[in-house]
């Protein structure tokens, strides 16, 4: 552990709340000031993140850096312990980048029924929860941050969502709370079974292996459900399509880009290193469920008629690849999983951005009504094509480095899994997962072909072919699909300035990490090597 600049992570995590405090004094009507303060706060938070990147010691990325620990809730021995290593650094920074970009996008895209102040405040609170989860090194602190994100997202979906928002938001909240409850029970069991000394993650990593095997397997089960719901893994995924479909664009982007990663990150940060013996027992089941998720999610995509719901189901499939990588318990697999988390965040975040903008223009996301986007909005059409290619795992773009090494790793799982006789199972999983990539190409190209190619459908055909882009001043429409679209033809325009500002960094990152994946792998690998050494390396 490196205890240098101990204030840095706390500033990075809580700075958004300082912005919230300032925003509370801004009148509700003064939307520009509220938005401005929120964006400046998010930008300053990212500056702190960039400073963290600069101060991070990349030669010791396996160690927790900027580490600090203080008493927090003494009676239950919960501490305020934070630290950052190569596993959490990319996700910590990603959360800051996504929040800022989503806020920039929101400048002229505050969804109905408005109230920019509350909407931006919720995003800042979300940022604190997300960043806090990635730096927390105490289970109770982790749990608190893990839960902090629930409430803002519940309100985002419930207030600014689509027609069925109340059902979706309640389902999202209750489902994830159910998982969290079991996770908390598992944390307490872990605490008691390690002598009721500390909830500190480094301490539990040191003492977790002393827990009796059967007990460890049960504790792992509790954590598994908590994290699997969040990922979400098949069969705990049914909250996701509803939440994504009903959430406003910003909610969908944050949900896909960061919130889902809290679950996969939990597996890598907590479940695997603290209970390695149980992880070995659970790995085959996780691998099987991951691959079922890949195929099942892809089939779900093929059955969709709504663009956003299709992208939501694709997340189930993509997170299946992440979980497959984790289940191999190898450095290659877990590196791939961590890379896949970031890549999915960038790519699917972009896809949801595009879906939101398509909905704003056409007032529908019904695939059969969308056609000829490349003619009507060539830039938007190309961006959708680029993101579809990235999402299907095209080499040279970020998505490839999440999927391909995960599949490769599943062919040669950890030696401890081989010793337990699981090699054949994992090789079968490799083949099925590889077939899943074909299905991914199928549903994404099918989506792209039907929405972007050909002539615009008759109902939108008379819209202007404005390819120059201009700022939109409307707000997202979340009402029912408007079949009398004649009135909305003026809404159909190409990428606007704010959209360009919000999207360009993500598009660039997808290419950069696709061409030079070692930028991220080099940061993560030492920490992953340390984590997997307990499973026999390879």
């Amino acid at each position, binding site marked *: 552990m490196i205890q240098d600049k101990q204030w840095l992570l706390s500033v990075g995590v809580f700075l958004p709340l300082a912005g919230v405090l300032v925003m509370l004094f801004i009148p509700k009507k003064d939307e520009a000031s509220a938005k401005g303060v929120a964006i400046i706060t998010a930008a300053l938070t990212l500056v702190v993140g960039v400073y963290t990147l600069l101060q991070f010691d990349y030669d010791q990325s396996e160690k927790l850096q900027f580490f600090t620990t203080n008493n927090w809730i003494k009676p239950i021995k919960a501490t305020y312990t934070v630290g950052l290593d190569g596993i959490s650094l990319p996700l910590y920074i990603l959360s800051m980048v996504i929040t800022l970009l989503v806020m920039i996008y929101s400048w002229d895209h505050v969804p109905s029924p408005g109230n920019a102040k509350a909407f931006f405040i919720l995003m800042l609170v979300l940022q604190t929860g997300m960043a806090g989860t990635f730096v927390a090194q105490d289970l109770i602190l982790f749990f608190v941050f893990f839960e902090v994100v629930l409430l803002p997202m519940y309100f985002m979906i419930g207030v600014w969502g689509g027609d069925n928002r109340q059902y979706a938001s309640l389902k999202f909240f209750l489902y994830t709370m159910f998982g969290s409850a079991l996770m908390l029970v598992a944390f307490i069991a872990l605490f008691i079974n390690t002598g009721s000394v500390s909830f500190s993650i480094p301490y539990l990593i040191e003492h977790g292996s002393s827990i009796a095997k059967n007990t460890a397997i049960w504790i792992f089960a509790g954590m598994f459900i908590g994290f699997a719901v969040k990922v979400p893994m098949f069969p705990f995924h049914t909250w996701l399509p509803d939440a994504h479909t009903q959430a406003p664009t910003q909610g969908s982007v944050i949900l896909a880009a960061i919130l889902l990663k809290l679950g996969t990150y939990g597996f890598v940060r907590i479940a695997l290193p603290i209970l390695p013996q149980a992880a070995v027992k659970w790995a085959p089941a996780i691998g099987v469920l991951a691959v079922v998720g890949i195929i099942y999610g892809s089939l779900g995509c*093929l059955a969709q008629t709504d663009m956003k719901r299709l992208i939501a189901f694709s997340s189930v499939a993509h997170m299946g690849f992440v979980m497959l990588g984790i289940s191999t318990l190898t450095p290659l697999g877990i590196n791939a999983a961590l890379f896949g988390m970031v890549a999915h965040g960038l790519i699917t975040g972009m896809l949801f951005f595009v879906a939101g903008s398509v909905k704003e223009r056409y007032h529908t996301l019904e695939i059969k009504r969308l056609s000829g986007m490349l003619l009507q909005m060539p830039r938007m059409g190309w961006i959708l094509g680029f993101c579809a290619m990235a999402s299907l795992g095209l080499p040279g773009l970020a998505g490839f*480095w999440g999927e391909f090494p995960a599949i490769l790793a599943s062919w040669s799982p950890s030696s401890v899994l081989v010793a337990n006789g699981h090699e054949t199972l994992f090789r079968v999983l490799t083949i099925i997962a590889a077939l899943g990539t074909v299905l991914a190409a199928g549903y994404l190209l099918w989506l792209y072909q039907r929405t972007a190619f050909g002539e615009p459908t008759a109902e939108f055909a008379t819209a202007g072919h404005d390819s120059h882009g201009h700022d939109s001043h409307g707000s997202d429409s979340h009402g029912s699909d408007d079949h009398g679209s004649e009135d909305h033809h003026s809404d159909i325009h190409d990428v606007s300035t704010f959209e360009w500002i919000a999207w360009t960094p993500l598009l660039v990152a997808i290419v950069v990490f696709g061409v030079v994946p070692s930028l991220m792998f080099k940061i993560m690998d030492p920490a992953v090597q340390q984590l997997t050494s307990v499973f026999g390396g*390879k």
Partner: protein
Amino acid sequence: MRGKPLGFAPDDSPWQITVPLIILGTLALVSGYLNAAPFHTEYFHEWLHSSIGVEVPEAPVFEWINAVPSIVLVALGFAVSLLLCKAVFGEKKNALQGLTTRNQLLGAGHKFLVNKYYLDALYEKVIVHGIAHPISKAAYWTNQHILDGIVNAVGKGGRRSGELVYKYIDQGLVDGAVNGSGATARGAGGALQPVQSGKVNLYGALLFGAAAVGALVLVLVNS
């Protein structure tokens, strides 16, 4: 030209098409040698290794004995197709020309090849329409009606349990007991009237006594 005459005059490709084709053709010719084990070039493997930054599983060792039969087969196929092309499409008159129209069996074979072994049809008609679509629909039906059905049933069950607990236990049993105890308290209030002397220290003593009794009960229950 041996087929039907075209209804338009074909143009040669403009440079915008020719140049990319030349680039792609050149790359197609040489890119395979980026990872050619017999010539000890492993650029792709090395690139992958350096890109990921972690150890990539080693490829199997190359052995000529395994490669020679395939190479010979490919060379033979290449030679035969070259000769066939010369015979069928060449300027010289040849017995092979028009063979597929004269011989029914060869004609069927030709049609089979022209249709690319009917793999596209197999894919489109059988796999996509016959298998993939019904399976994806079935998977989605399962998702909406079974998996989500369970989730919704749990939610509805929870709400119903809440209603039942509220109606029969909270309002019926607990509140009934509370109302009953209220009546008891009214009775006891009359009996304890002398204790209500208005002295704060007496109230304190009573409160302390009640707490002490409560604590004693807790200790007895937990011991």
